[in-house]
């Protein structure tokens, strides 16, 4: 498998990869598989009826990782991919997805990743999805991920969704079903600037007894960008849920934060907190007294906030 400079840049941004990863992987570039590797416990099989792959993780697979980054490096690429993860009972795995678009031209590039996760009993999954755009062209860079996750009894899913720069338009749709004792932790980080738009919808159904969900969303909206968050918890049983949605707004940006909690069981405990505000001037002052300029101070504050 040969990686060029742009491939390497994008893999570094979306998957912290500097070369071909260890363990199981599938690297997709411009709608085609660039490289694929299965291991004894993790089998990656291309779908027959549509673009995408099935990832089968054997029960009790522990400490293994799967990398499935996507690279779009041509202008005018529109790529939809369906990936299904079958995560075996009692396994403990780390999955890195993520998509980077390098758009050198003036036609739009778009990647719609549709991911299904079936998480078996007692399995633990950490799923990291990073989105990134670059390229000198004027063509739009669009990413619309859809993620369905169903977590069986006692399963734990940690989702880290990060989009820091360069994506012009994103609509992110995440739906999660949690069964008995299942646990979900979502960390979302988003930065938009210029004319970018981002819409994040997360719906979590707490179906089973003692299921729990925590959603922590932090975002920064700069310039004329727009962000909308619809974060929604539905408690159908004795359960606990917490939404924390925090945004820093700058320049002429717009942010709507719409957390919603619904309880259909008297032992459901659901909390939402949402805040939008600009950087506190005291924070800038403090960093200036440490010798940083105003611009450096702003950078430090935003970097910390989105970490």
């Amino acid at each position, binding site marked *: 498998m040969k990686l060029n400079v742009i491939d390497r840049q994008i893999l570094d941004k979306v998957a912290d990869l500097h070369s071909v990863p260890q363990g199981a992987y599938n690297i997709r570039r411009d709608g085609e598989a660039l490289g694929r590797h299965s291991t004894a416990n993790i089998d990656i099989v291309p779908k027959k009826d549509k673009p995408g792959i099935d990832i089968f993780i054997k029960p009790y697979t522990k400490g293994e990782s799967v990398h499935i980054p996507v690279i779009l490096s041509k202008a005018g690429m529109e790529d939809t991919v369906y990936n299904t993860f079958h995560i075996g009972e009692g396994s403990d795995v780390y999955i890195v997805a993520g998509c980077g678009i390098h758009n050198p031209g003036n036609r739009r590039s778009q990647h719609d990743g549709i991911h299904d996760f079936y998480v078996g009993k007692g399995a633990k999954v950490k799923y990291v999805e990073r989105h990134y755009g670059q390229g000198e062209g004027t063509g739009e860079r669009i990413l619309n991920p859809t993620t369905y996750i169903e977590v069986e009894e006692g399963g734990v899913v940690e989702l880290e969704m990060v989009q820091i720069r360069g994506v012009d338009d994103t609509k992110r749709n995440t739906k999660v079903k949690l069964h008995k004792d299942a646990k979900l932790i979502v960390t979302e980080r988003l930065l938009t600037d210029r004319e970018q738009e981002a819409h994040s919808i997360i719906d979590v159904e707490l179906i089973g007894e003692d299921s729990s969900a925590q959603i922590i969303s932090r975002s920064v909206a700069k310039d004329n960008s727009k962000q909308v968050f619809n974060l929604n918890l539905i408690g159908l049983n004795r359960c606990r849920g917490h939404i924390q949605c925090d945004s820093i707004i700058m320049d002429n940006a717009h942010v709507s934060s719409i957390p919603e909690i619904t309880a259909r069981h008297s032992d459901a405990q659901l909390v939402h907190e949402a805040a939008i505000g600009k950087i506190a001037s005291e924070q800038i002052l403090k960093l200036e*007294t*440490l010798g940083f300029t105003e611009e450096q101070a702003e950078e430090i504050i935003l970097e910390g906030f989105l970490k």
Partner: protein
Amino acid sequence: MLQVQNLTLEIEGNRILDDIDLNLDRKKLYVITGPNGSGKSSLAKAIMGMYKPTAGSIIFEDQDITDFNITERANLKIGYAFQQPPRFKGITVEELLELSAKNEGQKDIEICDLLLDVGLCAQDYLHRQVDGSLSGGELKRIELATVLARRLKLAIFDEPEAGIDLWSFQKLAETFDMIHEKYDTTIVIISHQERILKLADEVIVMREGTIAEHTTQDKFLSKIARDADCRCRQGCEKGALYDEVECYR
């Protein structure tokens, strides 16, 4: 090393500082005290560059820094510990202290020792975020550590005792004493605490935007002792209202 000359500060038509003259010498420890609203913090902030004076000038090491901004003053090694420090979501105590030392060219700062100097166990705090999960007192101590992390020529501490329990306060007083002994830093502490006043080489008493008195520690403390003997302290308003009553509460 620092001369404040005819410094006047007006904010929205109110005269906060009125024609202040003050000379500070290298390696001395000064305590500024006086009633609330007398202009102590405003003077400190004007020295740090957080307030721009309406008139007058500030000379630091023979350089006129009146028009210097905060960053420029910080880079001349002037530092200020906030009375009410801000919180930083997502930044850990360790990162904030590293940022504090970053512009000092110090590579290996002893973060654990710094935290210990302000009465915090490093193990418990290094990885905590400087956010709403910290109490006011914890935040205050971390603020002091950010200033101690720098090798300053002039360090100003704005009411360091506020929010700090007595046990830690003892430790803090020792830390000030240690810096005073060990380094050439000129230290200015805004305080009402007798224990801090006892560390002072010189005491500056402010009242209504002016320096009412610039004296030695001994002279000042002898007056405080008289004040402590006063049986009418509870509910006394005279001390604050009438100039002829010499009262330093």
